[in-house]
């Protein structure tokens, strides 16, 4: 068991290093930080001093090592655009994005999995066809359009829900939460649906495809041949076997949510990390972009690791057992 975890962790390290390299390369070669930070006029002496201060005259690998050491401590320098520590900026905005992602994921799973199971089991019912049509449309709608449509209907025409911002948030230590106020919760609804809808349809189609595969297997046929009840076959055997591979993909989807939040946050002017990232892409704010990239990579790698562990816990075939004879 430990060897499994250890090997997975070891595999994660080169990925992180590769991402760090890309981030750092962006830092080092794209744009001229000196010019950006000092403005238009500067003397050679000023430049030389800054270069030495920032360590820009040292060999590539030394700078890279510094970068990594700093990164691990969460130190990413100052934002070009806002002149504030990047880490602080990201930290401020993280709760907004995380809460949004959590709500969206919850919604996507709560609705997507049952819909997928239903359309897998009862392939030809009219409800299944309805769900499938709905999912097809869902996959064809870009996230931002969903947001716009929802805003149009619920904010402009019906005036029920807010179209931007988080509402009132409560500060709990470092974390700011929108769950504790009515306006906060109302503000969460439309963005969560927007963010979660795409994932919902993906999850539904995935569960359905998996379910159909499983229902065709020999062991399901054998279960039926043994006269097991429909409930035992469908919900005991088929469902369990379906959900195991679904876990992996669902886990990865959760990571994707944090990335897709970029679009949703833009539509709803949600003050999260995604909006920050977009603003920095537009302004060529490299430190923020690099930091966001590293953070996203860490999140993805971390989620991958957890999903692998979950898989291990759930599928007995992965635990190399006593073996046959």
């Amino acid at each position, binding site marked *: 068991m430990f060897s499994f975890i250890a090997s997975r962790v070891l595999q994660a390290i080169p990925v992180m290093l590769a991402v760090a390299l890309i981030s750092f390369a962006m830092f080092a070669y794209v744009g001229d930080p000196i010019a950006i930070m000092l403005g238009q006029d500067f003397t050679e002496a000023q430049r030389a001093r800054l270069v030495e201060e920032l360590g820009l005259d040292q060999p590539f690998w030394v700078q890279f090592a510094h970068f990594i050491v700093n990164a691990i401590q969460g130190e990413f320098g100052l934002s070009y655009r806002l002149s504030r520590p990047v880490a602080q900026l990201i930290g401020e905005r993280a709760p907004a994005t995380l809460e949004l992602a959590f709500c969206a994921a919850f919604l996507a799973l709560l609705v997507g999995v049952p819909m997928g199971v239903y359309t897998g089991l009862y392939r030809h019912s009219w409800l299944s066809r309805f769900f499938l049509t709905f999912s097809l449309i869902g996959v064809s709608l870009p996230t931002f359009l969903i947001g716009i449509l929802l805003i149009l209907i619920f904010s*402009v025409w019906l005036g029920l829900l807010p179209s931007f911002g988080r509402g009132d948030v409560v500060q709990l230590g470092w974390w700011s939460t929108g769950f504790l106020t009515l306006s906060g919760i109302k503000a969460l609804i439309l963005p969560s649906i927007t963010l979660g809808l795409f994932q919902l349809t993906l999850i539904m189609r995935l569960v359905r495809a998996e379910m159909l595969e499983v229902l065709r297997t020999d062991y399901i046929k054998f279960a039926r041949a043994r006269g097991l009840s429909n409930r035992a076959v469908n919900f005991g055997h088929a469902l369990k076997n379906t959900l195991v591979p679904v876990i992996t993909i669902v886990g990865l989807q959760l990571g994707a949510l944090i990335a897709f939040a970029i679009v949703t946050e833009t*539509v709803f002017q949600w003050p999260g990390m995604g909006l920050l990232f977009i603003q920095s892409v537009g302004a060529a704010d490299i430190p923020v972009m690099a930091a966001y990239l590293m953070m996203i990579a860490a999140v993805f790698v971390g989620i991958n690791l957890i999903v692998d562990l979950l898989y291990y816990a759930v599928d007995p075939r992965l635990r190399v057992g006593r073996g046959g004879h």
Partner: protein
Amino acid sequence: MEAALRRVFDSDLWWSFTRSPVVVLSAVVALVCILGALLAPLIAPHNPFDLASLNLSDAFKPPAWDAEGEGLYPLGTDDQGRDVLSAIMYGARVSLLVGFSATIFAMLLGVLVGLLAGYGGGFSDAVLMRIADIQLTFPSILIALLVDGVVRAALPREVHDQIALFVVIFAIGISEWPKFARTVRGSTLVERNKEYVQAARVIGVPSWRIMLSHVLPNVLGPVLVVATLNLALAILSEATLSFLGVGVPPTQPSLGTLIRIGNDFLMSGEWWITIFPGVALIVMVLSVNLLGDWLRDALNPKLR
């Protein structure tokens, strides 16, 4: 020629195609969209980019069926008096151009990598697929954003604007190649172990020849399915990037750009500026998705 045509119409594929009215409809719709976009300069009622023809007094006109609308502008006008319908046609042009180009780019790159990995095996396979896997763990939109952002930062603004279209195509293409590579690699592995390939090797046919004339044709089926579904994704990605303001340049607005512009007027009630381009986008992507779904089911040997 006649025999070939007859074979096409007699095939399982055609039968499955004509069997589903939905699929036929989406094919027709897709065709209409493509033609409309291609022929936009010829058949659009107005040219929204011809500054001379714009009339500011015609700004913010609602669609023709509304009381204040005019037949001249069937879907209304935007804040500068541009006809929404024409803007949609030109915008669809850009959207489709980027979508197709990006998909073709991703397909060429991905098929090449997949063939090399699957046929070469061993080290090259391991390395290439590892790269593909790592890239696959990140959502493509993120990769496209990143590539776009880096290029934007690396180049001065004027240069960037000139080549922005290519940058977008490149960014989206780069973000999508792993899917092609994986599919092709899998099929190549299967074909490589088949006897006819081994026979060819024994005779001494050079590897590239084998890959091109033997392996490639057998791999095209799944590639086509992936390409169709990716086309839909590419169009959506471009729309998203343009909506976020980091996609196509403002001189060549796509549907995404139009939606972004129109979004500013949503709250003040001029909904048509953003909704109609949105509907056009949905219709295009939906029909491509339907076709892709049908193609996948029709080519899936297990479902026959």
